[in-house]
């Protein structure tokens, strides 16, 4: 079992529901295979100025059904490359959520915390305790299934698969 980690960073808030992966990373840039270059186009169709907030460790705070639509992994790839430590939201679209898990990017469903966070707030996620702290307030999050938690803590599907290959 890998070490237990706490994820924290300054909040970047997308206070909208049903944000699709096309606006998060438009189709025209899908021919870019390198995550370091992908991050230059993150949020392009939504609000490119959000990229200015990607300084140091950040936590992306979002609304309901975040990440709907395309299966493009460029979105969480770019998020990881840009220093986003965790995505905290009211709810998530299925392929986006599993892409995050597969890349070892912590993703927590925590509606109250997502509603409480303001841009720049310090957000701290304890995935094992299923809590999200926003500033001084602590909120419950939906517990991640053990399988998903283990995969994220291991660093994603690639290390998980390497372990499988090794055994």
């Amino acid at each position, binding site marked *: 079992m890998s070490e237990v980690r706490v994820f924290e960073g300054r909040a970047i808030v997308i206070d909208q529901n049903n944000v699709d992966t096309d*606006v998060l990373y438009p189709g025209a840039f*899908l*021919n870019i*295979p390198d995550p370091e270059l992908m991050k230059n186009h993150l949020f392009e169709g939504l609000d490119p100025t959000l990229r200015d907030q990607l300084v140091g460790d950040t936590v992306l705070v979002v609304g309901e059904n975040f990440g709907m639509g395309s299966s493009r992994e460029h979105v969480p790839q770019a998020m990881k490359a840009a220093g986003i430590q965790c995505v905290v939201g009211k709810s998530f679209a299925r392929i986006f959520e599993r*892409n995050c898990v597969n890349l070892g990017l912590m993703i927590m469903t925590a509606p109250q915390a997502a509603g409480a966070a303001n841009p720049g707030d310090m957000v701290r996620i304890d995935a094992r305790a299923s809590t999200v702290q926003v500033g001084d307030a602590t909120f419950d999050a939906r517990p991640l299934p053990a399988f998903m938690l283990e995969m994220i803590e291991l660093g994603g599907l690639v290390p998980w698969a390497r372990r499988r290959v090794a055994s």
Partner: protein
Amino acid sequence: MGLTLAEKILLAHTDAEEIQPGEIVMVACDLVMANDISGSVAFREMARMGVTRVFDRSKVLMVADHFMPAKDVKSAELQRILKDWSGEQGVKFYDQGRGGIEHAVMVEDGWVVPGDVVAGGDSHTCTHGALGAFATGLGSTDIAACLAFGEFWQSVPGTIKVDFSGEKQPFVSGKDLILAVIAQIGVGGGTNHVLEFVGDGAAALSIDERLAVANLAVEAGSETGIFPADEVTREYLDGRATRDWVPQRSDPDARFARELDIELGSLGPLIAMPHSPGNVVSLDDAKGIPIDQAYIGNCSNGTMTDLRQAAQVFEGRKVHDRCRVIIVPASVKIYREALAEGLVDTFLEAGAIVSTPTCGACFGGGMGVLAAGEKAVATTNRNFKGRMGSPEAEVHLANSWVAAAAAVAGEIVDPAEVLGSVVA
């Protein structure tokens, strides 16, 4: 307690003796597909997993369709990687001119049979539910694991039963049926669920129409949308599929999370307004919106059924001066069939262009993207902001009759008005 169709398929593809919604299981794939966008990332991740060969080369196919023909050097590189890797692995590769849009090709070449589990590196893999498969879209790293081990992890979804009853009205197609579903449950309403389409209205649909319905299941957030296989399915697969299959359906005492009744007798053509497939209104409420481009095609509505509907409208008529029309047959076979039937001539005579089968402008990749301020009607599945080009463009989703009629009138209009008294 009985099982739903999706539960039966999943159970047959796991080691488990029983499964419960919400439980995470490893699911074995009968088929793994990726394209020029999802493929190269998946190959890289598979290599990082320490695996050099695919789990079973007869169960893997690659399709170059997104940035196809390559719009720039970067896109050409992705296609070269796809081709080279497929050659090294000895898996089927559909190159330019050999196939078309992945989901159309997979269906028409008999890759998918009822009861299959299909993992595709594309969210519209749910299209294959039209044939009674559990077919689902996954990201590239997921696909890497599928290529390596022939498995993916899956939280067992619940099932929403959608009962289509009665007869479709004139100028109503599969597109309208699924838009009606999305209008009711919303773009997140199907999350963690499968849509299962049943009832006499579902049974009466052709495979082309079922493809259109299943294709947009993901637009409701669903894992997939599935039609129980029946005689229509058998007739379609005869002579195409080489693997055996048995028809299955949900048990009478299966547990459904929700049931939806959609009465087709009172359903007219629908339009999904910008910028969401869930922003559905009746055709009447969208009439009069001026249209700069009509796009007829893509993996949901680029079938012969769609091209015939469009041709019915364009026959003897001209595209309105203010409007451009791009017609995209979903596959090379469909293209040739349209050519043989004289439909291509009808389109060209009307002033439309007929594109090579490609994803192209459907996802803003190329081959007909929109300028700022332009309004389009498209038979595609997504009208998100910026999806087909400029974020300041507006896309209206509609069926092929409606799209073609809008092209002729230069504005959204009832196809019945364009066609006069002719009834579909």
